[in-house]
């Protein structure tokens, strides 16, 4: 370009580079200048970057845990990249990241490849994030809707098309149901929430829901929306719509259906979610320290809410770089601690894990060296 432009660009570039250093976020300057939170008892010796990747369901929880962990360990930077369970596991197994988030525990062939990644040790699945999946609906005038598994399956298959259908009326005696059409809403993107919801429908209503559980919605038709916020947006947008999403994201003006368990109806509460996790057996034949839970969707335990999502943190039992190992261990201890789980419950709406589960996880964490 001609001379004047070139002459003008030079000083601008210089000014830019000088100005840069002073312009990082004031909240960052606050922490780097050491005025961090005062209550950290011992000035932790940990420092460096700890980045993980994986399930997008854990994004907000991981951000909360990262903020909490960084306040007690100011020199550590924790990054979590929500690339999805598949991407997270892939990057973990190829050594890209020290820990991964995944909505499903590692398959057997993944465990074997993890052997040489984990410096001779093995990979460990830790259920750190439990979140009830609410069946949200937009039906003015109907407070707490009660649905049995078969009815839910028929609604999402489009076999029940109006709200005053006899199958629904049967579960909701004395409730006046309008004749508006039902629009089932599902996730258009692959997600762990869809995987767990279809798993529930397949186990609790096998005769009606024949499709295998999968991350992608197997059924044609109905409304599809992108991400949890998209589903919520779609349900709010239309009338007579019903869909599934993390309970924490469901806004107040939408109703949350109660699911039939045994012969009682249970709503999506934190306690009910923790109850079903405790009631579900562990998968046998897993490597030492690995806690993979076979969720019992057809449980009849009182007060257990079976439509729940369990997301795992996947770590190695031993790391080549000892400092990295120590950092992962400290971070996982914080995540599964009372304080960590409560922070996630407040910010991300997850259900804190039960004492029993925390005990098992702590013993597994001891193995990491």
């Amino acid at each position, binding site marked *: *370009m*001609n001379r004047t*432009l070139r002459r003008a660009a030079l000083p601008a570039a210089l000014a830019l580079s000088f100005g*840069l*250093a002073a*312009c*990082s*976020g*004031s*909240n*960052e300057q606050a*922490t780097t200048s050491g005025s961090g939170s005062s209550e950290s008892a011992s000035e932790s010796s940990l420092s460096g*970057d700890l980045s993980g*990747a994986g399930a*997008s369901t854990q*994004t*907000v929880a991981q*951000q*909360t845990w*990262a*903020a909490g962990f*960084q*306040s007690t360990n100011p020199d550590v*930077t924790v*990054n979590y*990249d*929500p*690339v999805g369970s598949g991407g997270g596991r*892939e*990057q973990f197994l*190829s*050594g*890209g*990241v020290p820990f991964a988030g995944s909505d499903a525990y590692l398959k057997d062939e993944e465990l074997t490849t993890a052997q040489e990644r984990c410096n001779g040790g093995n990979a460990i699945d830790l259920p750190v994030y439990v979140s009830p999946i609410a069946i949200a609906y937009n039906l003015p005038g109907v407070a707490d809707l009660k649905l049995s598994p078969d009815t839910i399956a028929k609604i999402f298959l489009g076999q029940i098309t109006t709200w005053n259908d006899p199958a629904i009326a049967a579960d909701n005696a004395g409730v006046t149901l309008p004749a508006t059409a039902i629009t089932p809403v599902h996730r258009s993107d692959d997600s762990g929430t869809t995987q767990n919801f279809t798993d529930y429908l397949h186990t609790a209503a096998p005769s009606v829901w024949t499709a295998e559980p999968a991350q992608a919605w197997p059924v044609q038709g109905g409304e599809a929306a*992108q*991400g*949890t*916020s*998209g589903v*919520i947006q779609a349900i709010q947008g239309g009338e007579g719509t019903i869909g599934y999403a993390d309970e*924490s*994201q469901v*806004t107040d003006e939408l109703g949350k259906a109660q699911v039939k368990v045994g012969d009682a109806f249970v709503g999506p509460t934190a306690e009910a979610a923790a109850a079903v996790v405790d009631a579900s057996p562990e998968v046998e034949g897993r490597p030492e320290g690995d806690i993979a839970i076979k969720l019992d969707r057809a449980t009849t335990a009182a007060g257990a809410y079976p439509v729940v999502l369990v997301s795992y943190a996947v770590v190695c039992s031993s790391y080549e770089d000892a400092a990295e190992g120590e950092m992962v261990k400290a971070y996982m201890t914080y995540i599964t601690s009372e304080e960590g789980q409560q*922070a996630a419950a*407040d*910010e*991300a*709406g997850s259900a804190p894990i039960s004492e029993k589960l925390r005990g098992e996880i702590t013993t597994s964490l001891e193995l990491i060296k």
Partner: protein
Amino acid sequence: MTTTTGPSPSPEAVAEIEQPMRQARLPRWTPWASLAAALVVALLVTAPGGRSLGGVVAITAIAHLVLIGVLSAVREGSRRAKDRIVTALVTIAFGLAMIPLVSVVWTVVGNGLARFDTTFFTWSMRGVVGEGGGALHAIWGTIIVTLIAALISVPVGLLAAVYLVEYGAGSRLAKAITFLVDVMTGIPSIVAGLFVAALFVIVVGPGTKLGIMGSLALAVLMIPTVVRSTEEMLKLVPNDLREAAYALGVPKWRTITKVVLRTSVSGIATGITLAIARVAGETAPLLVTLGITTGTNFNPFDGRMATLPVYAYYQYTQPGVPAEAGVERAWTAALVLIILVMALNLVARLISRLFAPKVGR
């Protein structure tokens, strides 16, 4: 010199050609009157069925068109009628387009102002959960990534266009390049992102996410737009200017830089702004190549870098609890991105006015 006499046209034909000087003309206020009448008609028609704004506007427009057309055809003849109808049509097209565009800006500004405060511009998201926090790290990210993308693609695009128009016109290589620039405009933005991401996974290692990757992905998207618009502008420079310069004994390369580029710089500046504007708003390629981080990072060669579109995307789709805090930040980030790109627009408009050929149209 004998003038041969051909067959002379028939009197009717002559009468047809010679238009009478004085023609009946509708008064100047007719268009406004017909618009008012059309509005009344529309209100009457929609009265029973419950009035939806869209319905009223649509019927008013159609009624106005019919009214003005008929009136003009009767009084002024079909040529004037067509002219008035087209004038009405063009104005309606403009109005029609303004509705969604103004609504977009109105929504973004309306929602964006909620968090348009100093904390938003002085804080990043590091250690922030729920309320508060800001997007300073994303603002810096967008500026740096887009700037580097421009620094890569503008010179390459400009020089390639110069080659196509000045040096290689007609040669096989030039035809191949023009052909392939068309192909490049077709590259979907997400595929450009995938390409750069995969390239760096092979070259550097799995799961790498660097600022420079975002810039390269954006550059791949920018180059074709820059080449195409510059090529168009260079072709508009009349050839006698080049010949005038050559005739003054000016070598070809200096003619191009001092005369050709100098004359078309205003068009090129607009083209480059359009390219930057189009690319600054891209989300998909940055999502795949940069991901998101909560801290400020100025070094495009080390560590992740947040950018405004990706920041807005994640704040909107994964707002956390309560959702309002995240969604508000998303709208404000979108507003800031628009302001940033608008400022870019302004700068380029200044450059083009400064260097525009000094000739009134």
